[in-house]
């Protein structure tokens, strides 16, 4: 029986509009009882429907969360893979540039960590310092375009040969500048400006002071500190004292004086890196 009809009949009875005999009353009560029981059962079933939906929703939510978790995990793994691959490629490219001039793979590693320390102490963010660390091994990538005969010439270079070697800064920059990736952008700056000098006497552009990007100023110190301490075709490794004297003298000339101060303040850390990444064939650094 429809709810409205039942309620209508009940209301008529209650308000006295219909009068019922004893039998009629009995029948009516039976109908009411039956309907009451039915409605009661329906109420339970409506609540059960609500419960089912709740469970369904919860199951759905849990499933979704699990799937999101898995996806995030996978993305992290993939991202890590990409980052590591990127680093390896940069490192390999940097090493190519270095081996062209008979330097060791450890040179680029040391330059990377020296640059990182200088960047952090100078006040660059952790993120930028890490990017510089990973990009600085590329500073000499432009040497891939310089002939072996010049790069590995044991004797003194002619003025023209020296000019050709200097081109590696511009060449490295041209190789890397087209990328929009922060890492390669940084690498292009480093390649371009690691031979600029604070007093404007460097190359390729003769930039001065803070015209030189902080990445260039940092890598200049890191590169020279390491190069002087290592054997090269054209020279023996310098003793530490001699290197430090040069840094003191060249502060404000070749190098950013603020960075030289930071270098001396943290000399311990630089020396630790130097001994951790010592070249196997070269023990004459000290």
């Amino acid at each position, binding site marked *: 029986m429809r709810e409205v009809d039942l309620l209508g009949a009940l209301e008529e009875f209650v308000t006295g509009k219909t009068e019922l005999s004893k039998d009629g009353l009995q029948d009516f009560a039976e109908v009411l009882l039956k309907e009451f029981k039915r409605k009661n059962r*329906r109420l339970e079933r409506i609540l059960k*429907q*609500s419960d089912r939906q709740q469970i369904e929703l919860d199951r759905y939510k849990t499933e979704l969360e699990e799937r999101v978790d898995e996806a995030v995990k996978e993305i992290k793994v993939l991202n890590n893979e990409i980052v590591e691959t990127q680093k390896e490629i940069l490192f390999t490219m940097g090493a190519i540039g270095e081996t062209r001039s008979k330097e060791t793979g450890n040179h680029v590693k040391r330059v990377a960590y020296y640059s990182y320390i200088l960047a952090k102490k100078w006040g660059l963010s952790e993120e930028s310092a890490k990017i510089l660390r990973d990009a600085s091994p590329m500073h000499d990538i432009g040497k891939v375009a310089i002939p072996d005969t010049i790069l590995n010439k044991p004797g003194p270079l002619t003025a023209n040969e020296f000019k050709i070697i200097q081109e590696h800064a511009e060449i490295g920059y041209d190789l890397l500048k087209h990328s929009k990736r922060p890492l390669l952008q940084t690498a292009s700056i480093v390649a371009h400006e690691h031979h600029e000098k604070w007093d404007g006497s460097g190359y390729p552009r003769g930039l001065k002071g803070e015209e030189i990007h902080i990445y260039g100023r940092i890598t200049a110190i890191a590169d020279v500190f390491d190069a002087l301490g290592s054997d090269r075709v054209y020279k023996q490794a310098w003793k530490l004292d001699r290197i430090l004297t040069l840094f003191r003298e060249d502060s404000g000339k070749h190098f950013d004086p603020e960075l030289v101060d930071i270098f001396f303040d943290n000399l311990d850390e630089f020396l630790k890196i130097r001994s951790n990444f010592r070249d196997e064939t070269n023990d004459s650094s000290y």
Partner: protein
Amino acid sequence: MDTLHIEATKFTPDILLDPEERLIRLVGKSYPENTFDFYAPVLEWLQNYFEIESSEDTTIELEILYFNSSSSKLFFDLFDIVEDAHNRGHKIEVKWIYDVENESAEEAGEDYKDDFEMLNFHLVEK
């Protein structure tokens, strides 16, 4: 009588009330913001239909994937109208259609079938 067609939304089913085909069909989800207002024209249409139309065979198909508890109550009201018509001699077949995987839709269908034991009520697995 005019056909009444209400298109599905994100929260409401597609509703087709077709007097020519003698077909009443609801397909989709049912979480209207206000269930009783939403379904009022449907119930009204049904009532008129069973009053005006002859008592030839009518088919009612409900394929409701998910629905809230006020929709649950509303379907009881809807089947009350159908049961009423059935009692007055209308020949009506009700099909409650559900997906094999949708257990809760199946259970809900069983509850309706049980409540309306007088009706020609079929659970149809898809």
